């Protein structure tokens, strides 16, 4: 389908192929996450599982604005970012199953997905800590005189801890090329935002540092992409960091074992009727970018890919014991007796 100037503007400069690719990613993330939930209940995935269901637009929109040489560092709800970044789902599911073929050889699990070859520097499980590391990464980029950008993801809950403030100060002070993406899904684990933070519009916290910031509808992948592009360019140009708040909603619990006492089913249902994946799909079809058959095909392929990752993980050998003791150091030195 031809791209008219109006179309281009409408879609923030994204081509139909790019738009379709965005939908494909959102569909894949959704199916993959639902598969994870099933696998968790079948006790094939253990520990804590934090699903991205409902927030797909944020990851796809923001990561879509990055170049391959840019860096991503994120929190424990990291499946979405990993898939959006193009990580193959097979090693991801294998990691969740604790297999040798997992992205971290079974040593990390759900909260610590990684693929350094794609500049995906991991999910982190201590709320707020990795923001400081993002500043460190950006320091390195600057000292190495490179043009890369570091994009760091965190939730609304992370904006109350000391690390957040230290990180924003360090970043603004050093004009570091960091885009701080706050995925505000209105709850910090089980605590509603009104209960945990004094300033509920998270982007406003940046003013304490005179930092550029913006708020965007995180359920609209195109709007999110647009805002992210602005932020990334700002950071890359040397003008300094940006705090980008993407307001979204998560459909499932904080983690797989969350009983969600803090919100009603009706509340969740209300949001589900506006499921961003559904909305985007409908839009693309009604605006002629996707046909119903193509969409169905994408959905089916996503299902196959997700199921394929389960099969792959099932058939993989379990984590190799040798990493238990030899993987701790890059340069192991044995104690002597």
């Amino acid at each position: 389908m031809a791209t008219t100037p109006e179309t281009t503007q409408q879609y923030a400069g994204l081509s139909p192929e790019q738009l379709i690719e965005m939908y494909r990613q959102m569909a894949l993330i959704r199916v993959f996450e639902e598969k994870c939930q099933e696998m968790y209940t079948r006790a094939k995935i253990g520990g804590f599982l934090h699903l991205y269901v409902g927030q797909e637009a944020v990851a796809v929109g923001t990561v879509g604005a990055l170049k391959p040489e840019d860096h991503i560092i994120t929190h424990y709800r990291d499946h979405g970012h990993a898939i959006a970044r193009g990580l193959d789902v097979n090693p991801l599911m294998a990691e969740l199953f604790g297999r040798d073929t997992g992205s971290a050889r079974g040593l990390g699990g759900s909260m610590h997905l990684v693929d350094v070859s794609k500049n995906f520097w991991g999910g982190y499980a201590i709320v707020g800590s990795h923001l400081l590391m993002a500043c460190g990464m950006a320091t390195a980029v600057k000292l190495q005189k490179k043009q890369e950008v570091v994009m760091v993801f965190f939730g609304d809950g992370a904006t109350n801890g000391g690390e957040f403030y230290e990180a924003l100060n360090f970043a603004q002070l050093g004009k570091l090329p960091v885009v701080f993406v706050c995925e505000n899904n209105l709850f910090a684990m089980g605590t509603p935002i009104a209960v945990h933070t004094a300033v509920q519009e998270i982007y406003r916290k940046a003013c304490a540092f005179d930092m550029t910031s913006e708020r965007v509808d995180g359920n609209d992948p195109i709007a999110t992409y647009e805002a992210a592009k602005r932020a990334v360019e700002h950071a890359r140009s040397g003008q300094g960091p940006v705090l980008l708040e993407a307001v979204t909603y998560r459909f499932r619990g904080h983690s797989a074992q969350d009983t969600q006492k803090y919100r009603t089913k009706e509340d969740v249902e209300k949001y589900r009727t506006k499921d961003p994946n559904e909305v985007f799909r409908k839009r693309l079809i009604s605006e002629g970018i996707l046909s119903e058959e193509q969409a169905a095909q994408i959905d089916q392929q996503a299902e196959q890919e997700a199921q394929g990752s389960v099969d792959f993980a099932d058939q993989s050998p379990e984590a190799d014991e040798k990493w238990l003791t030899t993987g701790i150091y890059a340069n192991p030195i044995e104690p002597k007796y």
Partner: protein
Amino acid sequence: MAVMTVREALRDALREQLKDDRVFIIGEDIGYYGSTYGVTAGFLEEFGPDKIRDAPIAEAGIVGIGVGSAMLGMRPICEIMSVNFSLLAFDQLINHAAKLHYMFGGQIQCPMVLRTTNGWRNLSATHSQSFDSMFAYVPGLKVVAPATPADMKALFKASMEDPDPVIFIEHTLMYGVKDEVPDGYEAKIGESRLAREGKDVTIVTYSRPVHLCMEVAEKLAQEGIECEIIDLRTIRPMDMSKALESFRKTGRAVVVSEEWESHGVQAEITARLYEHAFDYLDAPIARVGFKEVPFPYATNLENQVVVTPERITDAIRKVLK
């Protein structure tokens, strides 16, 4: 062969490292102030603000910057002015620096060196502690605590060349210690040093107490008591080989360190002596450390808390009974 102080040896070592593009130092008051203990005095002028980075008072941030930049190939030196402040950075050190290589299946490395200081003298409870054992407790960290100028220089180099996070522990009361630094002297992480030979009792120690023990040994030699002193130099991974060899000879040991006497590195050293040389044990092993109280301010009280030559001597005599 040069003779220099610990401070001078460290400055030499730092200068050599700063030649490398990947190396920078970040810490509080290391630039404009000229550094609390004079270690980086003049460096800001010499190397510029990109490499000598004065940080805000934010220890978690300082270490976080270190960790993050190390991940992307830099070789940062993070200075935490006093180990007491390192508590604020424990999450970065223990949950992140120590875990990156393991948790991400070997894909990420953290070649960061954290320089910090133990020390005391009328500084009161929150400025006089040492947390050697807390660092040494964590798999994923390496912990080095040299005592001599030569070892400071050589082990700092070794720490910087190591691809893993290293905690490099200095001591505020040791910066003025002067000694020979032989040309080309090298030292490895994870190797202890025989500081003094003797046949009667084995002293296992590290950092500042090494010098106190040497003093005590000189005095006791006049009584015919010959102390053998092992300077561990690295606390994690610990090299007990020389200590055990000595202990098999003497059967009697005193462990000396500047830390509270329970639950510390001393306990680990003692356990390893018992475990690996049980059949050579001739008397219970004695430990000399800080009295287990928060540090008081008044000098007369503080003197009763810290490790002194008298307390070391008493322990040696007790063990030799």
